[in-house]
C-alpha cells in the first residue's frame, strides 16, 4: 500500500486550447523550425506515472493495464506536448539475462551483470522481438496511447543506449576495459547498438514519434574515449532512426557539459540534459549543430522538495536563461522521482504553457533553501583513517551512483585499515544540505577527507587504491 497521498492541485489548471501546444509544436522544434517563442513541455514521468493512480513502480512496469491507466493520468494532469511510455533502462538488460533488483518507488536496477566475471558478447539470437521479456507490456501501452492521444501528443519510445547497456552487461569493469581492452569495448558497444536498432524498430512500428536513446553514463567517460570507442555505435543508432523517418533524442544524466560536443557529432535531433548542465552553455553548443536541447528542471530540489512556486520560478528562470528559444524543450532533468507532488509537475506544465500568467504569480518570490538545516562537517584531520564520502543522487537507482559506490565497496576489504566510507543520498534533506555545504555542484562525487577527488568520474580499482595509498602516506607518514 502506498502511504503517501496527494491532493489535487487547487491553484492551477491548464486549460487546453488557449495556446499552441501539443505534438505539432514539439515536432516543429524537432524539425528545427521557428516556433515564435512557444516552447513545448515534455514531462518524463516514468514510475512517477504510477503514483498518480496509486501503483508502485513495479506495478506500472510489469502490468500493461496499470501502465496504461497511469499514462492516461499523466496525459490528463500534465498536458504534455510529448510524453514517454516507459522510462526503464533495465528492460533490455533483463532480456539479455542480467539480474534485476526491483523497488517499489523506483525503476529496477541491474544487480547481476552477465559478464562481470568474464568478458563476453551476447548471442545475436537474443535480439529483441515483440515477445521478448516485458516488451509486450510496453508495446500494448504504446498501441493504446497512440490510438487514444497519438494525434495530439508526441509519444517517446525510450531505449537503452549502447554504453549503459554495455555496462549493465559487463558491470563496472567496463570502465577499466576502456583503458585495458578498448577493442572489447567497441565490440560490445556495437552489439548494444545493433540491439538498440532492433528495439527502435519495434517501438517505431508501434507508432512512436520520437525514439530517445537514454544513456546516463555518457557523462562518466571522457569526450576522447567517447569519440574513439563509442561514436560509431551511437551514430549508427541515430542514423538508423532518421532513415526510418522518426525523430530522435539523446538523453544523458550528470555533468555532460564537456561531452555535449561529441554527443552532437552523433547526429541526434535533440539532446536532453539534467540540472548538472548549465543550459545557456549547453544551448550554445547544440545551436552550433542545429540540434534541439531539452531540460532541465531540477528533479529533487525543485520538483520533489520544492513548492509549486519553486517550480514556477524554476521554469521561468530556465526560460529566461535561454536567449534563443528556437530548438528548445522544457522537461525535467531526467526520469521524475516517484514521489514528486503532482501539483509541482502541474505547475511546471502551467508555466510552460502560460508563462506570463505564471510570472505575475511569483513576483518577488525566492526559492526554498536548505540553509536552516544544521550540518556538521567532519574534522578530517583528527580522524584516525581517511574518510571517503560518496555523494550520490541515489546509491541504488542511479546507474553512475551505483558504480561509484561499488568502486569502493568492491575493494573495501583491501582498504578498510586505511579508510572508512559513508554514502549520502540527494533525496534526503539533510544530505542535500550537506552536499550544498560542501560546495559540490555535480553528483555523484567521491570526496576523500573532504576533497572532491572524483567528480562524475568512476575510478577503476588500481587508480583508487593508488590514490588512497598516496593520501594515507601524506596524512600519517606511513
Amino acid at each position, binding site marked *: 500500500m502506498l502511504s503517501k497521498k496527494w491532493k489535487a492541485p487547487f491553484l492551477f489548471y491548464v486549460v487546453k486550447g488557449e495556446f499552441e501546444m501539443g505534438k505539432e509544436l514539439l515536432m516543429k522544434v524537432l524539425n528545427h523550425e521557428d516556433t515564435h517563442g512557444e516552447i513545448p513541455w515534455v514531462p518524463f514521468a516514468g514510475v512517477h506515472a504510477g503514483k498518480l493512480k496509486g501503483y508502485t513502480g513495479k506495478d506500472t512496469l510489469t502490468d500493461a493495464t496499470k501502465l496504461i491507466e497511469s499514462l492516461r493520468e499523466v496525459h490528463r494532469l500534465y498536458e504534455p506536448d510529448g510524453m514517454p511510455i516507459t522510462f526503464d533502462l533495465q528492460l533490455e538488460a533483463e532480456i539479455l539475462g542480467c539480474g534485476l533488483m526491483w523497488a517499489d518507488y523506483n525503476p529496477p536496477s541491474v544487480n547481476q551483470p552477465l559478464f562481470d566475471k568474464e568478458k563476453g558478447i551476447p548471442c*545475436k*539470437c537474443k535480439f529483441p522481438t515483440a515477445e521478448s521479456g516485458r516488451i509486450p507490456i510496453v508495446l500494448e501501452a504504446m498501441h493504446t496511447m497512440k490510438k487514444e492521444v497519438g494525434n495530439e501528443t508526441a509519444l517517446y519510445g525510450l531505449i537503452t543506449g549502447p554504453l549503459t547497456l554495455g555496462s549493465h552487461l559487463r558491470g563496472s569493469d567496463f570502465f577499466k576495459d576502456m583503458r585495458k581492452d578498448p577493442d572489447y569495448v567497441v565490440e560490445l558497444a*556495437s552489439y548494444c*547498438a545493433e540491439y538498440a536498432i532492433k528495439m527502435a524498430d519495434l517501438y517505431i512500428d508501434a507508432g512512436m514519434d520520437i525514439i530517445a536513446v537514454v544513456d546516463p553514463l555518457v557523462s562518466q567517460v571522457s569526450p576522447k574515449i567517447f569519440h574513439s570507442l563509442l561514436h560509431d555505435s551511437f551514430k549508427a543508432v541515430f542514423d*538508423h532512426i532518421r*532513415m526510418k523517418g522518426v525523430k530522435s533524442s539523446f538523453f544523458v544524466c550528470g555533468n555532460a557539459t564537456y561531452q555535449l560536443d561529441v554527443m552532437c557529432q552523433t547526429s541526434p535531433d535533440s539532446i536532453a540534459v539534467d540540472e548538472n548542465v548549465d543550459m545557456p552553455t549547453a544551448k550554445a553548443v547544440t545551436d552550433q549543430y542545429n540540434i534541439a536541447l531539452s531540460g532541465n528542471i531540477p528533479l529533487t530540489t525543485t520538483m520533489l522538495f520544492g513548492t509549486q512556486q519553486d517550480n514556477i520560478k524554476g521554469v521561468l528562470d530556465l526560460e529566461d536563461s535561454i536567449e534563443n528559444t528556437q530548438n528548445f524543450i522544457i522537461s525535467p532533468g531526467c526520469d521524475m522521482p516517484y514521489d514528486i507532488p503532482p501539483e509541482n509537475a502541474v505547475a511546471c506544465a502551467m508555466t510552460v504553457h502560460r508563462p506570463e500568467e505564471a510570472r505575475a504569480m511569483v513576483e518577488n518570490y525566492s526559492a526554498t533553501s536548505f540553509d536552516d538545516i544544521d550540518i556538521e562537517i567532519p574534522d578530517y584531520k583528527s580522524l584516525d583513517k581517511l574518510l571517503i564520502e560518496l555523494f550520490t543522487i541515489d546509491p541504488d537507482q542511479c546507474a553512475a551512483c551505483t558504480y561509484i559506490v561499488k568502486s569502493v565497496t568492491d575493494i573495501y576489504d583491501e582498504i578498510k585499515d586505511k579508510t572508512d566510507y559513508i554514502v549520502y543520498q540527494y533525496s534526503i534533506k539533510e544530505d542535500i544540505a550537506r552536499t550544498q555545504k560542501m560546495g559540490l555542484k555535480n553528483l555523484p562525487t567521491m570526496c576523500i577527507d573532504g576533497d572532491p577527488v572524483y567528480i562524475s568520474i568512476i575510478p577503476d580499482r588500481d587508480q583508487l587504491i593508488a590514490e588512497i595509498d598516496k593520501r594515507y602516506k601524506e596524512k600519517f607518514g606511513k
Partner: protein
Amino acid sequence: MINIILLTGFLGSGKTTLLQRLINHYEESPIAVIVNEFGEINIDARLLEKDGVKIAELSNGSVFCACIKENFMQSIIEMTSREITYLFIEASGLADPSNMDLILETIKPKVVHPCQYWGSICVLDADSFIDLEGVLPAVKNQLLYAGSIIINKEDLLTPSNKATIQTIIQSVNPNTPTYFTTYCNVDIDRLLKELRPTEKVAQKSSNTLENQPPTLILKVLPSITLEKLNAFLDFVAPFTYRIKGFVTVEEKNYSVSGVKSHLIIMPWPSKIKSTNLVLISAVGIGLVSAVADGIKLYAKDLITL
C-alpha cells in the same frame, strides 16, 4: 544414389553462377538445390528459379552455425527423401564448412535414400581472396575443406597475385584440383570427376551468431534513376562485403550484384517480387551511417530502410 555436392566461396565469388551452370548441365536429371543466404532475403534463390528444380531456401545465417544448423539438417533429410540424382548445396558466402562431415554423419540414420557426399567445390574470388584470407577464418576454412578449387574472375588477376594465390593454396590445401576461370566457365564433367571429399578431420565451424556481420535491407523506390542508384552504390560499396538484390528503375527491372567496388547492374527479364537490396557490412555497425550518408548525398527520399 543421391550425389551431394557442396558449393562454398566468399560473398560474390561466383557460387550462384557456378550453380546455374551445374543446373543447366544436369537439366535432364532430377536435381534439388538448397540455397543458404546470410541475409533475411534470399536473393540467390530468385536467381536460380527454374522449372523442375526443387529449391529449399535457408536464410538469416550460415547453415553451419548453430542458429539454423537444425533447419539445414532437416532440409537435407527432406530433399534426400525425393527421387533426385543430385543435391547441390550453395552455402552462404560467410559459411565455414568445417563441420560438414559431422552434419552428414548426424543425419545418416534419418536419410531415406542412400547418399554419397562428393565433396565441396570452393569458388575463390581472384580479386579479393588475398585481402580476405588472413582476416576471416571462414574464408580460410572454405579453402581448407575444399575438394576442388575454382579461382574465378581470372580476368582481374595480375601475374603476381596469381602466384600469391597459388602459394596460399599450396600451403593450405595442396594437391587439390584447381581451375582458373572467368564467370565460372569450367568443364563441368571434369570438375565433378576430379572432385573428392576432404580428408581433413571435421571440426567446429567458426560460424556463430556473435560474429555475424550486420546486414541491411534497403527499399529502392521506382522513382530513382540509374545514375542516382549507381552513385549511391559506388558510395556505399567500400563499406560492404557484398551488395545484391533486384530493383525497378523507370519501369524496368534489374539485378544488382556487387563485390567491393565491382558493381554489375543487369536488366532482369522476369518479374520481381520486391525492390530490395541486401548489403552485408564489412565495417560492422558503421554501415548504417555510411548508408545514411549515401542516401543524403545521392538518393534522398529514393532509398529507405
